[in-house]
């Protein structure tokens, strides 16, 4: 398995986490602090272009140039191990690093732009960033510390049926760098099990896309929802209470659109959606509103609060 760092980490902010599930960022920060992971957040870091990139609006060269700038920021901040909160940031940054390392003409062109823009200090040298050794999903950073989680658990969440949705842009884009088997990924389940809960390890459609499909959710909604519905029906069949995520776009699709999809096919799904960092933070005793941010969710997460048992009260 690839080597995963626990220091000099730039926690890479995500546009969708920012505005839809900010609790994912605060939960991750809470966990990094608890697990002794050394990291910073930089106000200079720009968005990866992800949604715009995969809506075909941004061209590859522009996305790559902006990634080079963010790599320069990480280097200047002396935290060149990037940990993303979103699967699409992860895929885009890895691809950009590969292009910058392997295509001399692109790197030269980007550096020329940086020179003439007064940011020569951010110029990119080949191999500055290694796609495999420097760019991670934050869930991988947590996964690396899974053995330390059991001793830190304060809240018993074992009363729920739990399944995971591993994001396509984590598992499938750079599949040779994905932890475990991309046809049955278990990164999220491994972390959940570390909190002492059972998980539904396989269900039909487990590796399916969430159905968001970037432009599809907005321009081709019925198709988008029909794909999401397939997965929701399989989760319902498996009596899943909580679906765990690692990408805000997937979480958005399953949480925000769940009710309207359910109404259209006459099924009451009521499946709670949490990012794995939010779930772990809850288990480790984080405040549901001031850290985990469950007040921003569409499918109410309050049933978890009603059923959680404090381990210390035993």
């Amino acid at each position, binding site marked *: 398995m690839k080597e995963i760092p626990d220091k000099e980490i730039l926690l890479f902010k995500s*546009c969708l986490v*920012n*505005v839809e599930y*900010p*609790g994912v*960022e*605060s939960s991750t*920060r809470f966990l990094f602090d608890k697990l002794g992971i050394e990291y910073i*957040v930089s*106000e200079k870091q*720009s*968005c990866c272009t992800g*949604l*715009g990139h995969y*809506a*075909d*609006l*941004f*061209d*590859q*060269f522009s996305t790559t*140039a*902006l990634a080079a*700038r963010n790599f320069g920021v990480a280097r200047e901040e002396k935290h060149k191990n990037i940990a993303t909160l979103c699967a699409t940031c992860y895929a885009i940054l890895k691809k950009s690093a590969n*292009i910058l390392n392997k*295509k001399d003409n*692109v790197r030269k062109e980007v550096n020329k*732009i940086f020179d*003439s*823009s*007064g940011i020569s200090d951010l110029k990119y040298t080949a191999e500055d960033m290694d796609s495999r050794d420097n760019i991670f999903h934050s869930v991988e950073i947590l996964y690396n510390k899974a053995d330390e989680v059991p001793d830190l658990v304060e809240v018993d969440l074992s009363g729920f049926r739990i399944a995971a949705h591993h994001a*396509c*842009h984590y*598992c*499938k*884009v750079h*599949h040779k760098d994905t932890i475990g088997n*991309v046809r049955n990924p278990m990164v999220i389940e491994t972390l959940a099990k570390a909190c002492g809960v059972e998980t539904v390890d396989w269900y039909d459609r487990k*590796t*399916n*896309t969430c*159905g968001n*499909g*970037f*432009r*599809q959710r*907005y*321009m081709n909604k019925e*198709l988008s929802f*029909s*794909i999401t519905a397939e997965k929701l029906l399989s989760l319902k069949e498996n009596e899943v209470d909580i679906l765990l995520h690692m990408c805000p776009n997937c979480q958005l699709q399953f949480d*925000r*659109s769940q*009710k*309207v999809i359910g109404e259209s096919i006459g099924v009451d799904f009521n499946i709670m959606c949490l990012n794995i960092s939010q779930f772990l933070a809850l288990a480790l005793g984080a405040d549901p*509103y*001031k850290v985990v941010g469950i*007040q*921003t969710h*569409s499918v109410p997460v309050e049933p978890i609060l009603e059923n959680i048992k404090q381990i210390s009260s035993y």
Partner: protein
Amino acid sequence: MTTFKIGENTFKLAEIIIKDLKASENLGILKCIQCGMCTSVCPAARHTDYDPRGIVKRVLDKDESLFTDDIIWNCFYCYSCHSVCPVNNSVCEINQILRQKAIDIGKGKLKVAPFSEYAESYLECGLGAIPDDFFDDLLKDYGSEWGEFKDNLEDIREELGLGSMSLPDKDVNEINKILEKTGFTKRLERVRRCKDEGDTR
């Protein structure tokens, strides 16, 4: 059936795609034996006429009508095909490249125009945002609680101990300079104009 002349480079379209900046290293289009693994795992193929195997066949047949065929816009970019292909081909990447060609020749601009505000937000504060044009439709689907949450976003972020979302002015200026020089700002203007005029050229 496509008929090729003797000596004609039948792989011209495949080669254009392979050389594109978006194409992964050693993209295996020319190794495709039409096994259909891609189609077997494709969510769009399950629900529409879109067929990834067929897309590769047409690329290998130098079928340039793909640039104007709406079918290329059905891909979800989920990379399922990409992750199972035994010869390192990626219909997902092929679609991305075909759509860029469609934007270059005109027709694709109208397809991406609804998302132009995402990039405008990026130029304004270094952060993309879902275009406002979608807001009413999303509100209908997500419900009024979502709208209320959006009104209180800044307060909730503060409660969670999170800082400002926008970048400092200096960094936003850097980003604007970069995007002007990559040609993106002009590209965005052309897309925007297309949206305003409803022009499909």
